């Protein structure tokens, strides 16, 4: 046999493909993110201050919301009456509190912040 040739290795190519798939499948871990906790804390701040001073008018609550969440949109609901603040987004984070009135009825104050 005198003719020269090139031995093309299918095994090497297959091995390379498998190894590349393994390396690419190592997904980077999601970044450490405390934004959700911060959002929940501020929501709680709003509810706590509103309940401490007596539930204010919706316009004042909207103003407080914009002060603590200047770049976010959300909604405020008082006993079912809901007001949207800004354009509704995705991933709503809901915090609510129940309030008892002097006549013994239970009302609900809830606050939604859209995380996205």
């Amino acid at each position: 046999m005198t003719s020269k040739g090139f031995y093309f290795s299918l095994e090497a190519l297959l091995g390379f493909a498998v190894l590349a798939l393994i390396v690419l499948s190592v997904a980077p871990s999601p970044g450490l993110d405390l934004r959700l906790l911060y959002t929940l804390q501020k929501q709680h701040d709003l509810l706590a201050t509103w309940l401490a001073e007596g539930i204010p008018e919706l316009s004042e609550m909207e103003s407080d919301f914009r002060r603590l969440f200047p770049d976010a949109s959300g909604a405020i609901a008082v006993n079912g009456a809901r007001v949207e603040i800004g354009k509704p987004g995705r991933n709503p984070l809901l915090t609510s509190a129940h309030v008892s009135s002097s006549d013994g009825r239970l009302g609900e104050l809830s606050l939604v912040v859209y995380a996205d």
Partner: protein
Amino acid sequence: MTTINEKGVLFSMDALLAALIALLTAAAGLLVLFHLVLDQTHSLAGYRVQREGLLLMDALVKNGSTADFPGLAAYSAERRRVTPHLLGESSLPASFRPFSSLQSLTLLYLDGGERLLAEGPARNPPCYVYDRGVLVEGRGKALLRGVFCRD
């Protein structure tokens, strides 16, 4: 008639190609892992500052002042307990024991006034700002703003 000896070294392109592919794959894998570790190292330092900032602000707003911790929440004699989110204007501490990453702590009143509660030495960026909503006795709603930077 030719013999193997006359041909010299038998050079295998097949083995060379396989070896090169294996070495390049190993190098690529190590490079990916190196960048992953580097990313995690950078984000971990920032995460520590963020975590300390968030937890410290929460503790300041919800706890009263004790010998071990300068909380800002006022004590209510009527309720016989500390009232979270309600700060006593007159009982705010004049100075703060320094926390490792606290750059400044300021009360921003709704009427536009502000009061600097604590200021630390200049620190390195990145800095993170955290605002918490509070009530101040006699002044109404305010923002407690904490700025936290790396040491």
